[in-house]
């Protein structure tokens, strides 16, 4: 009965696989390190996962609609750098700098979506172009150097905690909730998934593929903007080199969470489980003092395993 419920719904099967993997990692690391299950370490895992988590929520929409966005981490770096520049050099109020930076991410996303629609080129190529442009813009704004010395009230706000929950985690939870509502409860979320499932079905039933694509990349850009601001708050700097290859880790998390890389199937809950799996894996390996080189190797192996399991689930 349980097996039937799982195999009839690919989403449930993927979630179960991811949950099982997360539990296995949890059990393994709790036996191998006495610090793994401490409250402070769990807070560490969640805080460290917050930036990737926000990018991954945005990537979920993009992958759901059958596209790939390679520009998310570069846009994140640009938004963080612009925010730091505004706060430190431009003397902007945080109430202006933060929304402007997040919106900048949205604008970058809209431009990517618009160019895909205009040129009919694969999103892979267009977002690769946007990746270079956004990274270059971050270097230009910061003259290639991290911008330090943010106002105290911004740092206190960003690195503090509310009811013992770190602010980055609260921001991630808000981002997850909004992403879940958008993807599962609204017409926009459904149309993004339909676009990934069949462009012809979408267009034949009057759904404007161009409009949905634009919105999808706009939303992903906003999430990159939020991640950029969060990264800046955590590191107390606007770093133009921030988040190198974060876009690939975010895509790994989305696929690990059961999304179909070709579109049509993706869940926010699955993505978050994927982010947690990667966060727990990295944290646990750190606790065991495993070299960074081996950590990268493990992440690669997890992605391959996820790709394999995703195919198994899809066939059923």
């Amino acid at each position, binding site marked *: 009965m349980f097996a039937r419920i799982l195999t009839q719904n690919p989403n449930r099967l993927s979630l179960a696989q991811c949950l099982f993997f997360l539990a296995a990692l949890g059990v393994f690391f709790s036996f191998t390190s006495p610090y793994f299950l401490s409250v402070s370490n769990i807070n560490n895992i969640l805080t460290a996962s917050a930036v990737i988590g926000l990018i991954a929520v945005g990537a979920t929409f993009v992958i759901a609609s059958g596209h790939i966005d390679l520009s998310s981490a570069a846009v994140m770096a640009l938004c963080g750098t612009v925010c730091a520049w505004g706060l430190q050099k431009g003397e902007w109020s945080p109430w202006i700098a933060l929304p402007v930076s997040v919106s900048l991410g949205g604008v970058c996303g809209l431009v990517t979506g618009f160019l895909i629609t205009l040129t009919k080129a694969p999103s892979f190529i267009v977002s690769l172009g946007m990746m270079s442009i956004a990274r270059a813009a971050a270097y230009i704004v910061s003259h290639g150097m991290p911008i330090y010395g943010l106002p105290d009230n911004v740092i206190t706000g960003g690195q503090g905690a509310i009811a013992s929950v770190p602010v980055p985690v609260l921001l991630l939870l808000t981002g997850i909730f909004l992403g879940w509502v958008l993807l599962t409860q609204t017409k926009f979320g459904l149309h993004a998934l339909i676009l990934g499932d069949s462009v012809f079905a979408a*267009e*034949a039933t009057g759904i404007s593929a161009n409009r949905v694509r634009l919105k999808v990349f706009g939303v992903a850009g906003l999430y990159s903007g939020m991640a950029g601001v969060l990264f800046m708050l955590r590191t107390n700097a606007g770093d133009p080199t921030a988040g190198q290859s974060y876009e690939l880790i975010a895509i790994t998390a989305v696929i690990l969470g059961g999304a179909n890389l070709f579109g049509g199937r993706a869940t926010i809950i699955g993505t978050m489980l994927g982010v947690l799996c990667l966060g727990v894996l990295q944290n646990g390996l750190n606790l065991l003092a495993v070299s960074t080189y081996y950590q990268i190797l493990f992440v690669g192996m997890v992605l391959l395993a996820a790709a394999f399991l995703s195919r198994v689930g899809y066939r059923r």
Partner: protein
Amino acid sequence: MNGLTLHHISKSFGSVDVLKQITTHFDAGQVTAIVGDNGAGKSTLLKLMAGIHAPDEGQILLDGEVLSKRCPADHRRRGIDMVYQDLAIAKQHDVVTNLFLGREITRRWGCFLNRAAMRKTAQRELDRLGITIPDLNRPVGVLSGGQQQAVAIARAVLFNPKVLLLDEPTAALAAREVEQVLILIRQQKQQGRVVILVSHRLNDVFAVADRLLVMHQGRIKLDTPSEATTLAQIVEHIVG
């Protein structure tokens, strides 16, 4: 004038003239079958009526009103729905989602989905049409070919269209499923809809059609009531 009117419709793709000056009228409560050889322009004509393609020249009128926006959303809103040869269904999504594709029932500012209402309406309408789908929550991709076809037809008639366009609705079906589709077509005719059917299966065509249009190289070569002709004569017109 009630029904669908095509007025001097022409369409080219590059240097190929697919449709040349097509003028005709389709009455409500009548099934018209469009037949012809491959490349005769049948499917293009159907897609023009559905708003997928825009004509280069000419007008399409529904109940005397010109359809000027020329997009599927507007044509569906005005009451023209189509069942596509490849069904145009989202195979990873469930039956309910597919039935309401592009016309979801919403609440609160028109952007939040009302899944409960969609599910209830879907079940009621499928019962009305006599279509049995064992589990509305299953992805359409795992259903049989006949069931997928039934979902596509149900989607087209769910919102009581004035015009129902069907592109090869029986091409990939077993004999029993073909009979079900033909019954559905007759039901739509009895409900006073314009039904236009493109099919290569002439036996099915003669079983339901009141009128036959034979197309040849982008033009209407023969327009005849179905009882005034025979299968052999139609084949002769198609190949000749």
